[in-house]
């Protein structure tokens, strides 16, 4: 499809109009590009073509050629005749070819759609008022858009299992299943965990797990998103909220450096679910199950909700001034974070540079699943490199911090979120110096810090992360933060303004980006926050090629070393 880096295009005739489309794509996509909907159920751009729902039937013809000579067959006006296929063809399984004619609005197509819709509904329970999918159901939508609007069915409907638990997180209502096989193909093709299949045949075909297996992989909830109807539901979400009440905000998953694009669905400031947002360069249309529950931390018991100085609750302003007092004339150490946003890391680096503070950084690592859960369990390790907070690859320990304290190179500490007690730092060393802790949740370090300043989760603020492929992706505030709290940027900017001479640091994203993007040698050069595209922006990270990045080959990601090797 793509040659010489340029996608080649061809012309087809769509509903009588000549249009240009990329070569090699199918008719559902081709029509979609030109604003014509070809309704479909089983087709999914990121799964193999099954061609089973038959909702995408269209009329198709190709310019006629003589079989023997290969010459164009002309009509009486000297125009090449079109050989129309006498039957409708599936749009999802038919690829464009030069000069192809496609009709998506003919009576043959309309009747086909009416027929398919009727068939899909004859054995369907049609109890939308008590169905969790209502409001985001393709069956409802296409029945309204393409169905006849009345029923001719007077027979008994088939009975199938209800409320089947397919695994720990997914519940199935087989009567609602339209047997599109998306969920089956997803498990086979994306997760390589072949657990779902159909048993019985004909209209009695029933989706189920293979004997002795369950749908428990860490991607199982994607089947719920994929399911065009209310058959597969999230055990966590089902029957708790009507989807039309939900506000959707684009965001980025913070679970790992994969940086899956997500949608945060909330109502009145409360998050109800997280679903993947399509990004063909990052996560296709998927995300991990484990990433979907991270929102629960927003209101977990350990959430820090008020500032404190020496263990006593204080206002935010008091805490910030106490912190700046504490740092005056001190040899400051700053423990940054791979979980902070690019902008926060930039300001923290600025603060550190101005105060000649020593910078520390630790990484968080786990097992790489080779898909969307990468070994680097932080969303923004690379932000530290790009903003200059660090030029080394962090380890999962902070052993040099202990040494610096012992050598008296550091006698005050600003910690962003990290729990130092888990990072190989000697607690006795820490007790000897004043510590200011900025973070969202309580931990052992927050407990013995002198000043604690609560901050916001990624759902409550805006900013950007740089993922494992050095892709810059922005996230937008989805819900308001707890009353009285301010964004981390505001806190760090206040510290800069209090501690650095003549500083007038703004905490506004646009102005921070103005500063950040100034340097010609920086990959962020010339960028504007509001102009970061919804699907992110690929940065040039080649400067850091020599660092020992830990991520394995995964979805839309190849480790640098592998790339280099393959070039040799």
């Amino acid at each position, binding site marked *: 499809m793509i040659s010489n880096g340029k996608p080649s295009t061809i012309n087809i005739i769509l509903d009588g109009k000549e249009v240009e489309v990329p070569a090699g794509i199918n008719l559902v996509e081709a029509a979609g590009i030109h604003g014509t909907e070809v309704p479909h159920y089983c087709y999914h751009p990121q799964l193999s073509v099954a061609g089973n729902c038959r909702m995408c039937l269209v009329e198709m013809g190709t310019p006629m050629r003589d079989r023997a000579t290969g010459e164009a067959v002309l009509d009486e006006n000297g125009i090449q005749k079109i050989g129309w296929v006498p039957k409708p063809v599936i749009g999802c399984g038919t690829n464009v070819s030069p000069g192809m004619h496609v009709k998506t609005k003919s009576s043959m197509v309309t009747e086909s759609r009416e*027929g398919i819709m009727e068939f899909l509904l004859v054995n369907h329970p049609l109890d939308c008022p008590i169905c969790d999918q209502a409001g985001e159901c393709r069956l409802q939508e296409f029945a309204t858009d393409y169905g006849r609007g009345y029923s001719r069915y007077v027979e008994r409907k088939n009975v199938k299992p209800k409320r089947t638990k397919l695994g720990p997180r997914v519940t199935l209502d087989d009567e609602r299943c339209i047997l599109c096989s998306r969920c089956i193909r997803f498990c086979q093709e994306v997760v390589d965990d072949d657990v779902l299949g159909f048993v019985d045949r004909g209209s009695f075909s029933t989706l189920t797990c293979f004997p002795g297996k369950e749908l428990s992989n860490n991607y199982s909830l994607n089947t719920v998103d994929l399911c065009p109807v209310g058959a597969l539901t999230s055990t966590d979400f089902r029957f708790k909220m009507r989807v039309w009440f939900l506000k959707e905000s684009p965001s980025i998953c913070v679970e790992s450096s994969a940086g899956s694009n997500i949608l945060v669905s909330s109502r009145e400031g409360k998050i109800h679910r997280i679903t993947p947002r399509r990004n063909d360069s990052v996560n296709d249309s998927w995300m991990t199950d484990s990433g979907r529950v991270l929102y629960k931390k927003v209101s977990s018991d350990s959430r820090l909700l008020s500032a404190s100085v020496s263990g006593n609750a204080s206002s935010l302003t008091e805490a910030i001034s106490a912190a700046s007092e504490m740092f005056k004339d001190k040899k400051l150490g700053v423990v940054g974070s791979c979980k902070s946003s690019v902008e926060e890391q930039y300001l923290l680096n600025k603060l550190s540079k101005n105060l000649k503070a020593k910078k520390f950084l630790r990484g968080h690592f786990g097992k790489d699943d080779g898909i969307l859960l990468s070994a680097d369990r932080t969303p923004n390790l690379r932000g530290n490199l790009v903003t200059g907070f660090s030029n080394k690859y962090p380890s999962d320990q902070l052993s040099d911090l202990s040494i610096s304290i012992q050598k008296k190179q550091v006698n005050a500490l600003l910690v962003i979120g990290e729990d130092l007690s888990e990072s190989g730092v000697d607690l006795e060393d820490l007790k000897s110096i004043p510590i200011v802790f900025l973070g969202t949740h309580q931990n052992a370090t927050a407990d013995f810090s002198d000043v604690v300043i609560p901050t916001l989760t990624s759902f409550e603020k805006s900013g950007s992360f740089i993922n494992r492929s050095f892709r810059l992706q922005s996230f937008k505030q989805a819900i308001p933060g707890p009353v009285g709290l301010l964004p981390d940027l505001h806190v760090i900017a206040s510290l800069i303004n209090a501690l650095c001479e003549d500083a007038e640091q703004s905490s506004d994203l646009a102005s921070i980006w103005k500063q950040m993007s100034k340097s010609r040698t920086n990959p962020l050069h010339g960028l504007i926050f509001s102009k970061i595209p919804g699907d992110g922006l690929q940065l040039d990270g080649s400067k850091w090629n020599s660092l020992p990045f830990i991520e394995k080959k995964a979805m839309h990601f190849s480790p640098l070393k592998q790339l280099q090797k393959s070039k040799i």
Partner: protein
Amino acid sequence: MIKKNIPKERRIILKYADDPGYSNKMNCYLKNGGYKMLKKAIKMKPDEIGEEVLKSGVRGRGGAGFPAGMKWKFLDRKSGKPIYLICNADESEPGTFKDRQIMYKDPHQLIEGMMIAAYAIQAKQAFIYIRAEFFEGARILEEAIAEAKAKKFCGDKILGSSYSCDLIVHRGAGAYICGEETGLIESLEGKRPNPRIKPPYFPAVLGLYQCPTIVNNVETLCNVKHIMQMGGEAFSKIGKPNNTGTRIWCVSGHVKKPGYYEFECGALTLGEMIYDICGGLLPGRTLKAVIPGGSSSKVLRADERFTGKLKDGTEFDWGIDDIPLDFDGPASVGSMSGSGGIIVMDDTVDMVEAMANINAFYAHESCGQCTPCREGSLWMRKITKRMCSGDARKEDADLLLSVANQIEGRTICAFGEAASWPTQSFIAKFRGEFQDKAKHGSSKPKLQLI
């Protein structure tokens, strides 16, 4: 009264099968000249055999009637992938029982035909996919293959040549859809027999294990042996142009002598088959309808007049008795010769009940993969069952027709047509009976409808 010339059977495939004393054992087959054609073939160039088959004009006996030589030509030989040959022995079309005769009585003929075909297409491996219910057939074939292997007629280094090809019998598990070639291939791969979408999965290019594959019916493959024997040219003289060779017709239903009969294509008419060969109808009965090519072909009414033009331009005006039995005859009257299963129905048949019976079969056998066939076949079954249970409505005939029309041409595989053609033709030709059911329907106990 002029004494009619009763057409005579010409048995090529079933030449020996029913001879007294003929057995399905190797020594019997060899005694009757068996495996000579394989010996001849293995010395020829593979392409030469393909040419003979092309010349013979032999058309597939599995249902669609596609020329075998042409199919072989479509085989993708450049892919570098192994090539497979599959014999479709799933014979499940209601009304069809010819392949069974061959496999049970003369298995070596099939093996010889297959090995010649395998050599011609240079198959790496050959399979016989046999329906589950033919467990005895599978046993017979296994035994015959063991005998053939011992004599180097298949397996390693066939007849001392450098060509090797193993032959494996694979038993189905009892599903009609495994007869559809791509469903068969899926099943052979160990999966649910969900037929594949075409494009892109044409067996000759992306068949078994995504390798180029030829699927042919049992009878088709047996013909390959006879094409070797007489040469393509001579074979093409049997029967009629475009309808070459013999066909084994399976006659069932209300005739005195149902059975299988092998005739040259076009050698007799449907009427001759029913009255001269099968002894006519049972005493006191009159002919009502004939399904000429297995249950999925369109029904013909006894009192219909069929007019039109044949492919060669000659006009015809036939009654049901005049329809020639070959490929083109039934096709030119809007039905098909299909798998050769002729189902004869006399005046005792309630056409709605016959329809209900057929619909029950297709609803049960739909693989369930694609929407129109899956839902339509069961819906039609529910309607006809209800109609037969005393709850017919006057709109049912139209509804049935409309449901069938919504299936035809919109499915993944030809099962969609197989399931809708019966309904379409029954309603078109016996609408009155369907409407009468609505009038007299309440004689039987009512079906509980919820």
